[in-house]
């Protein structure tokens, strides 16, 4: 049994916002794969819940008239994997969410929850960073848009104020059209595991020149991150094998992995460097380049 004191089912986003404001100690629960575990483990602060589990208003994947791809925060990973829109336009997001947990978890865990935890190992996050995703956040009578890179404030901390709900992930056409991407998760197991390092690369080439290059990591620092120095050094360069080596050298200056009982800093750095090459190479192959 969960030590649940108060359970409030929200019928709409506005209702959820109202309930959050009325119950300052309450938290949102969506898929429950993180919240219920914390509740079970007796972690304080989870005993009052505003329930947005399978709230239809948050469950959509669509392309609007401006070709923005909009993903509701309540969408479960399985639906992302099976979405024709995502498969067609941003297959790397499928790669990323495929790597999460196992089928049962992917069937119930939401992309909103994955990011609202604010953890650096969130498997969908590095891809969203590489896609310059913008998060739409609703409050009482307010709506604001926050780039995903600003959403993560620190370990376990995200830019959500009292009474606010993350509703939508928006990926604009200039961030996916013409881009090819790849996500590489390195973990101790091939399923049911936390990333030791997650690496997402998204790039655009023209006549073997890399027109745009984005590389983002999970677990390479306290929050998911992009690597601006490396990106800058790659843009407008010709595709080559030696460029991959160069990327793996420059990347060191962008990241700040740390030692934990799960892995040492040195080990993580080695994987960061290696994945930069492998993920870039795979993305280039998808872009039709030869490496």
């Amino acid at each position, binding site marked *: *049994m969960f030590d649940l004191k108060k359970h409030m089912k929200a019928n709409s986003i506005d209702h959820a916002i109202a309930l959050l404001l009325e119950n300052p100690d309450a938290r949102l629960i969506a898929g429950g794969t993180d919240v219920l*575990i914390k509740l079970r483990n007796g972690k304080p602060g989870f005993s009052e819940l505003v*329930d947005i589990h399978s709230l239809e208003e948050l469950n959509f994947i669509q392309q609007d008239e401006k070709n923005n791809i909009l993903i509701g925060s309540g969408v479960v990973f399985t639906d992302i994997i099976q979405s024709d829109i995502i498969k067609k336009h941003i297959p790397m997001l499928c790669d990323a969410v495929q790597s999460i947990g*196992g089928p*049962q978890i992917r069937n119930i865990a939401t992309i909103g929850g994955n990011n609202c935890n604010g953890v650096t190992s969130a498997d969908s996050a590095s891809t969203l960073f590489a896609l310059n995703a913008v998060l739409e956040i609703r409050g009482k009578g307010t709506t604001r848009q926050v780039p995903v890179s600003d959403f993560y404030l620190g370990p376990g901390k995200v830019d959500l104020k009292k009474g606010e709900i993350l509703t939508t992930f928006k990926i604009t056409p200039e961030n996916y059209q013409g881009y090819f991407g790849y996500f590489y998760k390195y973990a101790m197991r091939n*399923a049911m595991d936390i990333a030791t390092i997650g690496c997402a690369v998204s790039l655009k080439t023209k006549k073997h020149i890399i027109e745009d290059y984005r590389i983002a990591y999970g677990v390479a620092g306290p929050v998911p991150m992009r690597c601006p120095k490396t990106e800058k050094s790659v843009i407008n360069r010709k595709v080559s094998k030696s460029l991959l080596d160069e990327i793996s050298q420059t990347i060191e200056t962008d990241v700040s992995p740390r030692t934990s009982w799960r892995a040492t800093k040195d080990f993580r750095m080695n994987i960061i460097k290696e994945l930069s090459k492998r993920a870039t190479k795979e993305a280039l192959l998808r872009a039709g380049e030869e490496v």
Partner: protein
Amino acid sequence: MTTFREITFSINGRPRTLYIDMRKSLLEVLRQDLGLTGAKQGCGVGECGACSVLVDEVLVDSCIYLAIWADNKNIRTIEGEAKNGKLSRVQQAYVDEGAVQCGFCTPGFIMATTSFTQKCTGEKITEDEIRKSHAGNLCRCTGYQNILKAVEKSIHPDKE
């Protein structure tokens, strides 16, 4: 404030209305309130899959699924799979291929296979796809080898 709530759902095809403690997981309601003890608790945190059931045909870990979420849903558990004294195709495949040892993970695995085969019976399925679709279920006895065979047999019932 009472922690009890009324929910109505279908369990293995039969409607039920229950007055349940909202603090319970679906697994606890199945086991304690309905006496359906086929789904097992192996970890309580969604790591082992022994508690897997189908909610509206979606495979979930019932240990991290609030029972109140089952309101108005169709729940399928291992107890409803054998009908009229006959095992389901998946159950029969597990028996025939020696995919059962201690049996504790078996009900969860069979629900995972049932969910998987519903989507792909008769299709060409790779070994990797089978492994991936069952990666949320842990087994400590079989090395998954005979389970792999049982899943293959469930997809292609005619192949011997």
